[in-house]
């Protein structure tokens, strides 16, 4: 096997070598398992390893490829899976005490599809308790650490997945995103994170109570946009086991990769994405816009009249939906939730039904407003978060200080770390977060690119064009 540096490795680079039998999937898997053993005690990215299954899958891949039965670009590729997605035979805790010993006897549809493509599942990644938070400080399983600065959080709730990809502990990971839980950690860890259109990817096998029904999306973490397109192509599509999954045909998502973006229009929503925006993030975002313009794209301001209602819509949708799943455990094991989550769930029981229904009606209005905006532009671009990764200490005390200001991480309208990501949850729009620069202290900064429903291809086209000129993905954390 060729000498291989796992840091910074991409599926796009390794897959052709596996196909040509220059890289052994078994050796590759062993290398990842060794690296995880070395780094996981510090990073806490993985909660459980599926070593036996991973080695068996890698051996099978090697056997098949040797015989000339190459299944495609995910054959022999090591993945990790967020711990709220069922993997047959692997403990799936959802970051909770309540499910600490639950071992599913089935695979989530996305896992089934990865296995059919020949992927190797290395293990389950750490996350915020029940996916109800955005820093991955977990009272039961410990905090996942940001690989760019281990005193900082990786974001969440899919924090472990982002850490695993950023730190070279797998080539790709699957997570879930009901308020930004893929894009937020992707931004804070400097990876690519995609939340596809609502219904584009089956949610069957997701742990109930870890995301609302109308705002939750399964998503993908990778190092590059092309890798992300490859993975989405394998997991997208209708699933009879998930009635909310869409029957829209699945296109070849790698086709728009490399296509020029000249003449395409970028929509900028003024106001909403400027709330408490930290100077360094603003500058990186503006520089990214300049690079997109240099590629021939044009910018245009777009107006979403009811944008200010987004936090209310998000809370009014997710909280009653979550309560519907948690009712049984609230009655039987209330003290097995962390106190903060318990209080929030109890408060959720007091949301009147008309609030929920009214929110769903206003959501249609909001979606129509985005639809109107997309008549003028092909994509909407915004920062992913207002700041870079906060420290664990800052999260515990509840605020950060930046640009001479104190910014609370939680306000009446909810969690401020998800304020910029939730517009794309309540609208279900396909949205990617890609790295758009680094702060002076070396922390990654993320940018979101969003497109009309089911136009993930457009998202990939613009994100790839930017990534190729910016080349931030070539930077690796020093571990």
């Amino acid at each position, binding site marked *: 096997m060729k000498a291989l540096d796992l840091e910074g490795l991409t599926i796009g680079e390794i897959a052709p070598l596996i196909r040509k039998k220059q890289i052994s999937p078994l050796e590759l898997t062993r290398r990842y398992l060794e690296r995880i053993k070395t780094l996981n005690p510090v990073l806490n990215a993985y909660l459980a390893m599926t070593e036996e299954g991973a080695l068996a899958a890698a051996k099978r891949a090697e056997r098949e490829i040797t015989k000339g039965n190459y299944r495609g670009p995910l054959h022999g590729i090591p993945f990790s899976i967020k711990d709220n997605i069922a993997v047959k035979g692997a403990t799936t805790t959802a970051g909770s005490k309540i499910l600490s010993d639950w071992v599913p006897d089935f695979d989530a549809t996305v896992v089934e599809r990865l296995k059919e493509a020949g992927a190797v599942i290395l293990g389950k990644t750490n996350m915020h308790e029940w996916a109800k938070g955005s820093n991955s400080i977990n009272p039961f399983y410990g905090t996942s650490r940001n690989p760019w600065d281990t005193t900082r959080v990786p974001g969440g709730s899919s924090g472990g997945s982002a850490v695993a990809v950023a730190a070279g502990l797998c080539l790709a990971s699957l997570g879930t995103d009901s308020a930004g839980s893929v894009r937020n950690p992707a931004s804070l860890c400097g990876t690519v994170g995609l939340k596809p259109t*609502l219904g584009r990817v089956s949610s069957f096998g997701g742990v109930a109570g870890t995301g609302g029904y109308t705002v939750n999306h399964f998503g993908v973490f990778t190092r590059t946009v092309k890798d992300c397109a490859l993975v989405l192509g394998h997991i997208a599509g209708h699933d009879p086991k998930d009635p909310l999954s869409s029957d829209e045909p699945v296109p070849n998502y790698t086709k728009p990769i490399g296509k020029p973006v000249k003449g395409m229009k970028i929509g900028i929503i003024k106001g909403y994405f400027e709330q408490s925006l930290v100077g360094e993030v603003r500058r990186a975002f503006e520089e990214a816009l300049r690079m997109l313009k240099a590629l021939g794209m044009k910018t245009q301001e777009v107006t979403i009249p009811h944008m200010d209602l987004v936090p*209310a819509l998000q809370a009014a949708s997710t909280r009653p939906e979550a309560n519907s799943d948690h009712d049984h455990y609230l009655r039987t094991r*209330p003290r097995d939730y962390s106190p903060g989550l318990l209080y929030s769930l109890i408060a959720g029981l007091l949301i009147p039904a008309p609030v929920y229904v009214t929110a769903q009606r206003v959501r249609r*209005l909001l979606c129509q407003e985005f639809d109107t905006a997309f008549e003028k532009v092909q994509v909407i671009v915004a920062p992913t978060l207002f700041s870079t990764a906060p420290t664990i200490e800052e999260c515990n005390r509840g605020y950060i200080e930046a640009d001479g200001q104190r910014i609370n991480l939680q306000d009446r309208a909810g969690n401020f770390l998800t304020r910029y990501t939730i517009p794309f949850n309540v609208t279900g729009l396909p949205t990617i977060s890609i790295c758009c620069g680094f702060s002076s202290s070396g922390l990654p900064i993320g940018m979101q690119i969003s497109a009309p429903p089911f136009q993930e291809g457009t998202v990939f086209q613009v994100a790839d064009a930017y990534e190729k000129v910016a080349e931030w993905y070539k930077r690796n954390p020093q571990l």
Partner: protein
Amino acid sequence: MKDAVRRLNVEYGFNLSDQEIDLVAKQAEEAALLFQPLFEVDITDITPLTKIDKRIKKTVTRKKGKK
């Protein structure tokens, strides 16, 4: 709101302390304030969003007097 939390406390058997009841009630009050503006939006003839389509379908406006 505190009374509502106390009722839930009994119904669900949470065993919340008075301090915890205050905390939850405060959260519920803040949420109620957050949701208030949703009721100020004109959503006449707009149906709930339950699924995302390629284009978000506008609700067909009914003519007055017809159901």
